[in-house]
């Protein structure tokens, strides 16, 4: 059979490479999804010894001393806060860059530097900062309110040092997306709104926001998923209570049963659910507009 359309030279080798690459990307993940349904007798590798939800039940009971449920809820809460702040702060800063912003270039370089800075350095720095803060506060309490010293432990935590460390990772992505959005944004819509007598707030609320809304949903997805899986920047900055990915990383050396695959499956399902929800929102948005 003669080909209906002649492909450019190099198409088939590259198509083969692409297929192999996609298999390489998704194949291993698929393997642990399948293995997380391993029977109670089964091990870390194939073959499957029956199929069961045994390892998910085990996961529900908790792994050793680690309360997976609590870590799950902590990560979910932190992810939600990071998502909200990433959207709000990136949007505000994106709006600022549309105006004259003296010194904006310097700020931009700081943001880009944060993106490519080895995460362990940022994490060490944030951890160090809060430790020094603790020392300072303890000295202060000792001098002025010794009765409070007993109750004070640390300023480090999920929503202080942890949140800050993660924002240095999610905000650069958010800001870069906002730049891309506003570069393509036609200011004629806002001018029309202004000519028709809209106040700056009305023009923002009723013209700009609906137009860039889908991109903000995208920024939100970046914020949540990046926080949900974040390890490197959080590692030295979380304090006493760990997030789910940090627990997972610790478990890789100690756990030798498929329960770790079950945890992997649950975590990935959340990531995919967020991506799916993003797509669904975008699709509904598109439909409502038509």
């Amino acid at each position, binding site marked *: 059979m003669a080909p209906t359309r002649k492909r450019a030279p190099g198409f088939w080798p590259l198509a083969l*490479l692409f297929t192999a690459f996609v298999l390489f990307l998704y194949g291993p993940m698929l393997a642990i999804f399948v293995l997380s349904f391993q029977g109670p007798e089964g091990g870390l590798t194939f073959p499957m010894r029956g199929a069961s939800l045994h390892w998910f039940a085990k996961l529900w009971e908790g792994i050793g001393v680690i309360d997976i449920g609590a870590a799950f809820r902590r990560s979910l809460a932190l992810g939600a806060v990071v998502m909200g702040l990433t959207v709000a702060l990136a949007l505000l800063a994106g709006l600022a860059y549309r*105006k004259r912003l003296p010194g904006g270039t310097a700020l931009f370089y700081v943001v880009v530097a944060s993106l490519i*800075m080895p995460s362990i350095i940022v994490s060490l720095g944030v951890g160090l900062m809060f430790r020094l803060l603790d020392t300072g506060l303890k000295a202060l309490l000792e001098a002025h309110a010794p009765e409070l010293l007993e109750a004070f432990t640390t300023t480090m935590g999920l929503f202080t040092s942890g949140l*800050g460390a993660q924002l240095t990772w999610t905000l650069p992505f958010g800001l870069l997306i906002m730049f891309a959005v506003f570069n393509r944004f036609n200011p004629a819509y806002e001018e029309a709104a202004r000519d028709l007598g809209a106040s700056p707030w009305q023009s923002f609320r009723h013209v700009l926001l609906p137009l860039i809304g889908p991109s903000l949903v995208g920024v939100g997805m970046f914020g949540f998923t990046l926080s949900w899986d974040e390890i490197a920047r959080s590692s030295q900055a979380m304090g006493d209570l760990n997030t789910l990915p940090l627990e997972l990383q610790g478990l890789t050396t100690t756990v030798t049963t498929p329960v770790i695959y079950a945890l992997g499956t649950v975590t990935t399902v959340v990531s995919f659910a967020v991506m799916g929800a993003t797509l669904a929102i975008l699709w509904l948005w598109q439909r409502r507009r038509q």
Partner: protein
Amino acid sequence: MSNSRTSAAFAWLQAAPLTAVFALFFVLPLALVVMVSFWQASEYELLPAFTAQNYLDVFTGCPVTADGDLCVTAKTYLSTLKFGVLTWLITALLGFAIAYFLAFHVQGTLMQTVLFIVCTVPFWTSNVIRMISWVPLLGRNGLVNQLLVGSGLVAEPVEWLLFSDFSVVLAFVHLYTMFMIVPIFNSMMRIDRSLIEAARDNGATPWQTVLHVVLPLCRTGLIIGSIFVLALVMGDFVTVGVMGGQQIASVGKVIQVQTSYLQFPMAAANAVILLAVVLLMIVALMRLVNLRKEL
């Protein structure tokens, strides 16, 4: 003009929350790392000082110890650098090929977008899970070894597939090729298609077109991707830890271990050195490519 001044003030008001986050959680911590790298520490507290002792300790016995071995720091950096260069080479080649396929061979914007998203979705899932997902494939009793032994190619299961240099590089490529594909693809989509036609009309072979037209025009994307990959690998401690079975050294891992033992001044000194090395690499990378363009 007061009008433009109020406008600038309002703009800064809008940028203030983001600026505050980076000042407080990025610039200040980095300054503290530099400061503490000159401090001393007892077993349970940090002692303000101004000493280069931490840096001297990092380079104890460098470049060569009395036994004729390389010092620990040099070994660690060489090992990390080896991962960096290998990963960079493979991701650059692979990323370029994949991006080229997407940009020039796939027809139609919808198909392009779908395939592009297929390549980027794993980026939004957990790195650690993507690492441990190699265990059932590469382990001693893993799928690859089952196949190799089953087919009679090897008598004993191959040991170096997992928790080895090989598995570390494999995981890096698995995780970070995306960081090459996206910027290179972005550069390729901006290339004026008539340039490709012009090259063909002038008798260039497809290979020549790629080498002399597409590649130079992808310079920016390639540099951005390279910076990402090198910075990620040089500072890594998670991948080397998990995929190396916690047995392989890397600069990031040294910093992480020292931090967990609360040796902050030492960890800070190592962080400053790592930062200097990464910055040098980025500068060199940009010079190298600029220079070649000028020749």
